[in-house]
């Protein structure tokens, strides 16, 4: 049995939510809730086991259908994949627990459960896929479930936001699929491992990478293609916002990184990585400044996501040169994705608690929140530490590595961007924290409406995620090591 589990581990990880999802739909909301919880709980040991297994033996390759690439589809679990699965599973659990309290048994949200389980499974499938066409299907699954979840509230804003998101997502997928078509045409395979050997930066190869990059950048919402993100992430129900910002944008980014760093090894475009870096830096500034200008908490948090996505893209110029700088940029980038996932989901869940309790999320109306909802205020503050990149937080470890990579590779200006971005983040985090610690608003209407504390599961789940992002800053070393397990050749310093 144990041996069987170990052998089937990659498939089991994916099958868990994918089995639960249709059941949650078939059996309806009454059973959907327990099914989701059981699936979330059972996923934990599986993901943990997967991570342990990878750290012990290196890359796991699972040949779906027994054919093996390039004919069949392989699931590939290397260090970074295991890390992404782990973070998805952990965030997933807490979001599930939170959602149980948040949606209650309201009939209107009964579709949340199957949609969320499908999204969960799709993300795992995406992180484990070693086949660029299979990734297209995964992308579509992720987008479709994400869009459906955004629209769940059926408010006008949410519907329009979902539509905008949908159109951007489909267009992104089409760009990506075009790239896949060109790659298959020119290099005869869609299996990443095979492609790594044969892909070249010729006309078709370059065009394919360019198209796929545009598509994925659109889906990741990198500046200036971020237009769809703030409305979608801020108008979605809060557990959904949490998942979108924490995990969904990371999905397309993950594919981008796989393509560039792992498959094409950035050889195809010497200059393009700088372009991505510059766009990332612009995103940091633009997103932060927009966040500062927001009056609604969820909008602020959503723009913060736009900014934080920017950091991910600083990885590209830093990784291009190889060497120790590449390794630092790699761990820094992935670690940023992980800690941002925990912290941002915590923030959105905290915002959701506020919204659910007070019926609004206007920042100026939330004065004295630390008195009325101390756990939620604390959650926001702790998550803010990661946003700012201050120790002890996962964000700090990530930024440490990025600054290191910048200096190592002689591109010190990225270090300036990282530090300045942290300060801007501080500005928008404290724009919220200040009032939280301050006095109650003059007009106490909100307080009068205050129906009392939220279920402890909601506040607890959010706080747990925030604490998680903090713990990463001190106990993050095992994760840093895992990220480097079977890292791409460019990063690991192995000459291909």
């Amino acid at each position, binding site marked *: 049995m144990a041996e069987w589990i170990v052998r089937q581990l990659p498939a089991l990880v994916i099958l868990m939510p994918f089995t639960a999802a249709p059941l949650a739909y078939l059996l309806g909301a009454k059973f959907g809730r327990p099914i989701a919880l059981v699936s979330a709980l059972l996923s934990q040991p599986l993901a943990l086991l997967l991570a342990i297994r990878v750290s012990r033996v290196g890359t796991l390759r699972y040949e779906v259908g027994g054919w093996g690439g390039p004919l069949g589809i392989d699931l590939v679990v290397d260090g970074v994949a295991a890390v992404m699965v782990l973070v998805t599973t952990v965030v997933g659990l807490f979001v599930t627990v939170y959602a149980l309290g948040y949606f209650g048994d309201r009939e209107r949200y009964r579709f949340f459960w199957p949609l969320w389980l499908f999204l969960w499974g799709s993300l795992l499938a995406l992180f484990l896929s070693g086949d660029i066409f*299979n990734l297209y*299907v995964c992308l579509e699954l992720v987008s479709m479930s994400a869009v459906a979840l955004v629209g769940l509230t059926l408010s006008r804003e949410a519907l329009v936001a979902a539509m905008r998101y949908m159109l951007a997502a489909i267009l992104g997928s089409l760009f990506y699929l075009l790239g896949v078509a060109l790659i298959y045409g020119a290099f005869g395979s869609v299996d990443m491992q095979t492609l790594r050997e044969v892909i070249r930066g010729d006309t078709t190869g370059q*065009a394919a990478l360019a198209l796929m990059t545009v598509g994925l950048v659109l889906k990741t919402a990198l500046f200036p293609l971020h237009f769809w993100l703030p409305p979608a992430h801020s108008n979605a129900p809060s557990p959904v916002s949490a998942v979108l910002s924490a995990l969904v944008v990371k999905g397309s980014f993950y594919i981008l990184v796989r393509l560039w760093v792992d498959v094409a090894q950035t050889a195809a475009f010497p200059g393009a990585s700088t372009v991505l870096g510059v766009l990332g830096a612009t995103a940091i500034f633009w997103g932060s400044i927009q966040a500062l200008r927001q009056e609604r908490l969820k909008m602020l948090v959503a723009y913060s996501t736009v900014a934080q996505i920017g950091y991910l893209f600083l990885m590209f110029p830093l990784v291009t040169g190889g060497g120790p700088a590449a390794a630092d940029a790699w761990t820094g980038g992935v670690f940023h994705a992980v800690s941002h996932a925990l912290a941002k989901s915590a923030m959105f869940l905290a915002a959701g608690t506020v919204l659910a309790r007070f019926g609004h999320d206007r920042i100026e109306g939330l004065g004295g929140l630390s008195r009325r909802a101390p756990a939620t205020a604390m959650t926001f503050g702790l998550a803010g530490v990661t946003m700012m990149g201050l120790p002890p937080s996962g964000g700090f470890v990530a930024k440490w590595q990025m600054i290191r990579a910048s200096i190592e590779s002689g591109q010190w200006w990225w270090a300036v961007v990282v530090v300045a971005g942290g300060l801007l983040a501080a500005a928008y985090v404290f724009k919220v924290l200040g009032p939280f610690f301050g006095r109650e608003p003059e007009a106490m209407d909100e307080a009068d409406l205050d129906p009392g504390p939220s279920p402890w599961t909601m506040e607890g789940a959010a706080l747990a995620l925030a604490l998680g992002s903090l713990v990463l800053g001190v106990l993050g070393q095992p994760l840093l090591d895992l990220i480097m397990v079977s890292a791409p050749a460019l990063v690991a310093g192995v000459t291909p």
Partner: protein
Amino acid sequence: MGKVTPKSPLPIRIAALAICAGVGALLSRAVLAIPETESGLAPLVDANLEASGVKNAVTAVLLNFRGYDTLLEIAVLMLATIGVLSLSVTQKGTWDPIAAQADPVLSALARFLAPVMILVSGYLLWAGEHAPGGAFQAGSVVGAAGVLLALSGYARPAWISRFALRAAISVGFIVFIAVAIGEMIAGGLLLQYPADLAKTLMLLVETWLTVSIGAILVSLFIASASPAEELRMRSGGER
């Protein structure tokens, strides 16, 4: 009441034109540069066709070599259905409201065509093993038949409960997953068909897929189709 202007402002159109020109140039250059010598995976598919259990290469790819894609694809279909249901005004996913729009000519045609289409889909399902066809084509035809029936005013038969409809929508995916897990339990990997059972299992999966695809396509239409009653009610209460 708002109106939608048919055109975007000129600057947007110019920018769009520039973007499209760039993408078009990049794309045309790239497709013309695709070498005519790269044979891709076709030889590999041919070499393994025997072992796949079916004779139609496309079916072999869809159900066996890349069966995992197909599994996820069914999930996409299910997701779309759930999404559409979550958006529908009634959120019930029933067939009833369409009946209001019955049309005698259409309904006569439907009464004749629907059984024929079901037969055709059965043929397509069976033929997919060695000739063009398969679950998707068969399912689409079932779906088309269902849509036709719905359009011509046939209400949901009373014996189809809401649960049964949900079951029809999800059965394809569930059977697919069950088969996949069964194969794992039997000692293989995910979706690794045992050689002697490959054909049978694939037909089993395809059959249920056909049912689901049909049900999903009909549901997509029905759930999304605006109930006439609802429409009348809403057009009365203008904003």
